[in-house]
């Protein structure tokens, strides 16, 4: 049973990440490859602040604050551009963050990572079991998803969609594209810090390999596969991308090839989907160019 709870924690983390990315990528139409950098900043910020003696709440708030500042800096630079150039700039920032996590050994302990991250304590109970973490993950989603869903259906969400559809036309109606995109980018990043902190406390050990470009591409793939710009897409995408490899475990594939086969299946799924259903399984608009 604890395996199921473990899966629900991992799924919950990816739901928070993909729903936050959905704000910029799905609603704003900005294909970004640095969401894992914000996820990682949340995780590292939380773990490092706890090491300095900060309280759990203080460490979480600090991690969100650091991620917000990072997103502001990246957003101000990258949002001057759109399309492919924006994508490559975010990709560049993702790589910079990865390089910093690997090489700033004095701060991050480099490739050795940070171990023994304390478990959180809530109402006098220390969270240890997968069940307790599953409840904590559900509580995180219960806090974050209503905030995001409120934005999705708010005038702000509508303006983001209008900018995605035609930025020139939206600007000609008095909409400040830069300000709106920047807010969405920062909010998405700040929200990604939450699952980062949760992940750090859950696995109690983090290293840079969890927050690489590959992870950012994985998050973008969730939205490409499930569909973006609505509430269904990230759910469908996250369930398939996170749970499919687990389902494949039961096929009895030899361990030596199981990992590679999973990658092949992911790749094939994306190719077939882009070919036959470019909006994603439950998406409302087509993100990829013809």
């Amino acid at each position, binding site marked *: 049973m604890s395996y199921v709870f473990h899966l629900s924690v991992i799924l919950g983390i990816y739901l928070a990440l993909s729903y936050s990315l959905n704000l910029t990528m799905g609603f704003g139409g900005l294909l970004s490859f640095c969401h894992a950098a914000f996820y990682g900043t949340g995780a590292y910020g939380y773990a490092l602040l706890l090491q300095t003696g900060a309280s759990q709440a203080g460490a979480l708030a600090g991690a969100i604050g650091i991620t917000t500042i990072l997103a502001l800096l990246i957003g101000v630079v990258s949002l001057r551009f759109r399309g492919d150039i924006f994508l490559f700039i975010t990709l560049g920032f993702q790589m910079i963050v990865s390089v910093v996590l690997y090489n700033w050994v004095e701060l991050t302990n480099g490739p050795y990572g940070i171990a023994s991250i304390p478990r959180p304590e809530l109402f006098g109970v220390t969270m240890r079991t997968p069940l307790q973490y599953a409840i904590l993950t559900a509580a995180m989603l219960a806090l974050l998803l209503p*905030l995001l869903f*409120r*934005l999705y259906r*708010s*005038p*702000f*969400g*509508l*303006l983001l*969609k*209008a900018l995605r*559809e*035609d930025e*020139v*036309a*939206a*600007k*000609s*109606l*008095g*909409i*400040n*594209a830069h*300000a*709106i995109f920047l*807010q*969405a980018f920062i*909010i998405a990043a700040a929200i990604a810090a939450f699952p980062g902190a949760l992940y750090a406390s859950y696995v109690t050990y983090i290293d840079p390999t969890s927050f690489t470009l590959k992870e950012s591409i994985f998050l973008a793939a969730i939205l490409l596969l499930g569909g973006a*710009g609505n509430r269904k897409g990230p759910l469908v995408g996250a369930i398939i991308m996170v749970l499919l490899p687990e389902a494949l475990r039961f096929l009895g594939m030899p361990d030596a090839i199981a990992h590679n086969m999973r990658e092949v299946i992911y790749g094939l799924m994306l190719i077939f989907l882009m070919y036959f259903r470019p909006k994603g399984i439950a998406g*409302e*608009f087509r993100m990829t160019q013809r």
Partner: protein
Amino acid sequence: MNNALLIKDVGKRFGDTWVLRDVRVAVPKGKITAFMGPNGAGKTTLFHVISGALKPDIGHVYFEGVDITGWPSHAIALQGIGRQFQDVRVFKALTVLENVVVGLVPQQHQKAWWAWLQPIKTDRSMQKIRHEAEHWLDYVGLADARTQAAGELSFGQQKLLSLARLFAKDFSCLLLDEPTAGVSPAMIERIITLIRKRVDEGALSVTAFVEHNMNAVEHLADWIHFMHEGRIAFSGRSDHVLGCEIVRELYMGI
């Protein structure tokens, strides 16, 4: 002065080619002004410069006495200048109603936290905005299509929708780039009637349009600026310009 829009010695070049040269135009209030000329004369570029899509290399643009040269296009829109595009540019995946609502969203709703901190006020104000948007869809005759995706409309209906968006926003100045191009004769008539009606209602202080359709120019324009090779070749009352031999030669090849 009775001129709301003043274009003073504006020049714009792409590489070594000047597409606008010393353009000096005063667009009067309460009249409909047409910009005519052959393809490549610089009409659309002039609209780009006025609406902030392009920055002029030299010269200034004044609106209601304010120098708006080089302002970003959203700031120019907030100053009261609305723009209709040649290729319409509706938000295709949004519904027809949402297309109009987008323009009506008040400034404070452009801040994300407003939706979190003032949810009830936001919902109320959006309800009001939706009613207003419905009124403008009714005004242009698209009320029945309000729940349809804008991309599903015919090109002519998309033109009507873009007009509804502009009328709803209550711009005092409209720049219409070929408002009747590519639509049926019946739709041309409908569009002309709507623009004329809005001007006669006194809602628009400045209306300028680029047009190739002579019928539309004859029915709408009070004043015509004829452009040729990036310059204003000459200007005059519409009956004078349309009857002018050089215009017929340059433009219609007669």
